[in-house]
């Protein structure tokens, strides 16, 4: 059994991801189509929320993935800082715009859902606000990557920003609860709740969630491949200049 860290080699990663990419993309498409079609057309309307509840199949998975993408960036940044694996740094870079888009989707679908339910597009509720802050963190992280020429320095500095940002994001989360008690319903999915939501909504939601997860994986694999190719190109150009 090869060591996990071998995949940190760009060549090895390219080969493995080329194999994995069609599968993850395929599973993502399958789960998304199944989950969303099932959720949108074959579940009953909620007795209180009516058909608007169906936005849950996009809203909740994208919100969960928006947070998970940051977590993944945090882990990848730590791997870069500790073990200096370049692919890990590039994976963090690749995940940031994906996480940003998931955050925007979560915010937008939340606004669309909030309008009929709460009568307002936007509310300075802790949960909503923390996603807005997450959005700002993604923006800053991406901007720092773009601003620095030397890719290794950029990887180091964004990793430090990601670590410090994570701490402050968590502090912000609790500060917000202190700041405003909020109007958002409790967590849709929670491990310690006895029953989260009714089974009829639950199964398609889990499938949609898996779909978003695999979609994230596929996009990150694809974007990491692109980043690796860009770095390879950069090395080739530098080589050309030096010769």
């Amino acid at each position, binding site marked *: 059994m090869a060591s996990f860290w071998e995949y940190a080699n760009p060549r090895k990663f390219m080969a493995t991801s080329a194999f994995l990419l069609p599968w993850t993309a395929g599973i993502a498409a399958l789960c998304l189509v199944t989950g969303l079609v099932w959720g949108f057309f074959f579940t009953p309307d909620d007795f209180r929320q009516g058909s608007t509840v169906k936005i849950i199949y996009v809203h909740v998975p994208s919100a969960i993935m928006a947070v998970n993408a940051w977590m993944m960036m945090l882990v990848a940044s730590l791997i870069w800082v500790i073990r200096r694996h370049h692919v890990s740094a590039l994976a963090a870079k690749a995940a940031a715009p994906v996480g940003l888009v998931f955050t925007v989707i979560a915010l937008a679908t939340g606004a669309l859902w909030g309008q009929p339910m709460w009568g307002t597009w936007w509310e300075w509720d802790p949960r909503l606000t923390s996603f807005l802050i997450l959005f700002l963190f993604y923006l800053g992280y991406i901007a720092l990557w773009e*601003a620095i020429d030397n890719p290794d320095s950029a990887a180091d500095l964004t990793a*430090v920003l990601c670590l410090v940002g994570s701490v402050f994001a968590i502090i912000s989360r609790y500060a917000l609860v202190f700041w405003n008690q909020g109007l958002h319903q409790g967590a849709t999915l929670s491990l310690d709740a006895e029953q989260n939501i009714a089974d009829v909504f639950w199964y398609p939601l889990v499938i949609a969630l898996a779909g978003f997860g695999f979609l994230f994986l596929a996009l990150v694999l694809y974007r990491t491949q692109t980043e690796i190719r860009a770095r390879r190109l950069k090395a080739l150009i530098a080589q050309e200049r030096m010769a």
Partner: protein
Amino acid sequence: MIGLLTRDLTLAIRAGGGFGLSLAFFLIFTTLVPFGVGPQTAILSDIAPGILWLGALLACLLSLDRIFQLDWEDGTLDLVATSPVPLEGLAAMKALAHWITTGLPLVVISPALGVLLNLEPPAYPWLVASLALGTPALSAIGTFGAALTVGVKRGGLLVSLLVLPLYIPTLIFGALCVTRGAAGQDALTPLIMMGGITMGSLAILPFAAAAALRVNLR
């Protein structure tokens, strides 16, 4: 390390703008608010805690990109990095110098600006206490942001983008403390929480800033 601090303070006094600029900004910002929201004292008095905190925060932001930039451009940063002074100490001293030239004057002048905005009388001690306890965190976080972007040309805007989200918890607890003070509610809890953030920032961020400086210098 004290030498670094006294030099930065001397430079701030000599070069002008060090002490005055952020104070002037704070004053102008506060003056502009009534033009934006109207002169009704009831409204002003309601929003005064938030406005004062926001003004102090933006005034701190104004001078962040100069913390390391000048030393970077004239080569001083390279030389300090090869000296016995650890970069962690440099970052801590830079944050302290920034606080003395920016944060401290804001704390001192804030009651006067509170009068302009018709701040409720019981809120004044809380305003001064929360700014005195919170602005060091703003300087420490800002120094970290400045260290990240020291190699970036025209990094001022980038610093704002990186630093402002990190300012959120401090702003929340600071403004909340003053708001509660004005309403005669328990203002000590947010003050203590903000103190915790300040202590944590002061303890950890000089190390993060030094790490960023090391990357930028190599």
